[in-house]
């Protein structure tokens, strides 16, 4: 008779078999690796393109009736980053069609009213529904106001009045925010990205733990072996955790490379935390993988079918997303017990750490414990359930 191996050894046997099995699943290996590598790259590309578009560029300003206000046109043209060009024959149509963002129209009475010292009209044709047109309009508004203010000052001086008399107040705006808060949300994006990988890297393996075995009709033969249910579920769970952590590390390293190699500073974006902080965040997410795969394994034990399991996951995931959003939106990170909430705790801690803050030590302990303990409870519960006939032969 053979010696029954201990639970630990059995768990190791199951773990090894699961890893061998899943590492051969080329499609999901390639799919998840691509996701781990491409997500940070795609996110970085989108962020940089958006930042690039927000950067002030040379304003090409079509002017209709330039000959009616040569002084204004010359002044505009002389401004840095402004390029005055002639407007087309039908400027209104061009703006409406979106071929031009804005057109400055100098009306016939402009020269006369300026000469008479009156408030001379200039028209700006804009498309209120297009953001590019809005941005151009803001700049033209500023330029015209600047020209008008200069002209006004000259008029006052010619009449012997100090221009300062008409501007009794001057508002100086000074940005007091520390540089780490001017990251353009990079800390949020990086945290969410790594959290995503922690959640999804091991789902397929964890979902297979009971439901997959049952649907494949391999659960009954497996349970005919003298194997502790805990060893069985825990072995499968740890295989799922290993894969999730692997993809998480790949995503973390790719993010690091992306953050350090692309010209973020050119666009005023900068993650001020160190490489070490970023790697710390990657490790911080490990307990998320532990918790989430345990939850998936538990749900896969009680669900009757894949569809039913997916419905449960949808509901749970919605709860997680809403809680996380509420936490970030209402700045609830300072509420101590939230640190112990799985996923939410890691997300807020990661956002703060990457935002250049120095979170208190209890938050690290609370986030890890808050995820690992429920994970262990879920796995123990799943193992207990697996002793029930109604679960093993559920259909």
């Amino acid at each position: 008779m053979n010696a029954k191996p201990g639970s630990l050894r059995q768990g190791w046997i199951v773990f090894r078999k699961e890893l061998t099995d899943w590492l051969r699943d080329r499609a999901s290996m390639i799919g998840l690796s691509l996701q781990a590598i491409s997500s940070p790259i795609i996110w970085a590309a989108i962020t940089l393109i958006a930042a690039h578009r927000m950067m002030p560029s040379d304003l090409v300003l079509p002017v209709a009736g330039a000959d009616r206000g040569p002084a204004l046109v010359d002044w505009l043209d002389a401004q840095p980053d402004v390029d005055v060009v002639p407007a087309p024959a039908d400027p209104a149509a061009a703006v409406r069609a979106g071929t031009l963002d804005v057109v400055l129209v100098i009306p016939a009475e402009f020269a006369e009213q300026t000469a008479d010292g009156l408030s001379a009209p200039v028209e700006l044709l804009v498309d209120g529904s297009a953001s590019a047109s809005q941005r151009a309009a803001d700049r033209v508004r500023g330029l015209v106001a600047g020209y008008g203010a200069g002209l006004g000052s000259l008029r006052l001086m010619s009449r012997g009045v100090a221009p300062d008399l008409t501007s009794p107040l001057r508002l100086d705006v000074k940005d007091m925010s520390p540089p780490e808060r001017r990251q353009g949300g990079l800390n949020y994006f990086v945290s969410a990205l790594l959290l995503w990988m922690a959640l999804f890297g091991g789902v397929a393996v964890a979902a297979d733990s009971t439901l997959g075995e049952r649907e494949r009709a391999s659960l009954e033969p497996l349970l005919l072996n003298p194997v502790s249910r805990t060893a069985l579920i825990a072995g499968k769970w740890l295989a799922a955790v290993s894969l999730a952590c692997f993809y998480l590390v790949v995503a973390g390293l790719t993010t690091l490379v992306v953050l350090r190699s692309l010209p973020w500073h050119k666009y005023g974006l900068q993650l001020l935390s160190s490489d070490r902080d970023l790697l710390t965040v990657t490790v911080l997410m490990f307990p998320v993988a532990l918790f989430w795969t345990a939850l998936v394994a538990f749900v896969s034990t009680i669900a009757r079918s894949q569809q039913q399991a997916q419905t449960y996951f949808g509901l749970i995931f919605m709860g997680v997303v809403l809680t996380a959003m509420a936490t970030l939106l209402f700045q609830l990170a300072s509420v101590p017990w939230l640190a112990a909430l799985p996923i939410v705790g890691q997300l807020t801690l990661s956002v703060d750490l990457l935002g250049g803050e120095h979170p208190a030590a209890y938050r690290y302990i609370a986030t890890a414990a808050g995820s690992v303990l429920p994970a262990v409870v879920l796995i123990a519960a799943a193992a207990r359930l697996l002793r029930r006939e109604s679960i093993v032969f559920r259909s």
Partner: protein
Amino acid sequence: MIEVERLCKQFGSVRAVDGVSFRADDGCVTGLLGPNGAGKTTTLRVLTGLMSPDAGAASVDGRDVATDPFAIQSRIGVLPDSRGLYSRLTPREHIDYFGRLQGVPEATLRTRREELIASLGLMELADRRVAGFSHGERTKVALARALVHDPHNVILAEPTHGLDVASTRAMRALIDGLRAQGRCVLFSSHVMQEVSALCDRIVVIAKGTVVADGTPDSIREKTGCGDLEDAFVALTGLENREARA
């Protein structure tokens, strides 16, 4: 040796097994016969420790199944109705996985695995992933992993189901071999020729109870039917059912 005594098992209002008793001796092939839904599968699941009985007892080699299911599971090898395999693993890996879970030492496992692969004619397929295997090939892999720990008692559900002629003959030879080695073989089947050719003793179950128990000859004699299939139909009340239909 397998013994089942007044076993009862109920699912909701359905009495799946209602006082089943029988014995399967060492060195004997015992056939468990019965129409669909007669309670065979439930009886086997109780016997293998996967279900607990509501009443009655089952024992293997004198050990009670309910008290120590793990001890029972290392003394029996089961080819259940469910023959699910892991599509990305090879037959060798399947055998190794189950062998290790049963605690077979690595050196013994290697020898045992190669013996099983040879005796089941799996040499050509042994290192191929099982995805795409035929039904018969899958059955052989499932059987190999069920026998890897060299169990004294062997329970086979429909062992020749889906096998071609050559494989069926090989399977019969294997069952004969198990008997010759003095093992206790219990198998369920629908194929009457097979049952009459292989079984030393037949237990017929219908509607959760044993309706006949004896050698093929004694059953034929008891029912007055020359043919075992006719005897089976008479015993299980299938005739009445057919007549009603």
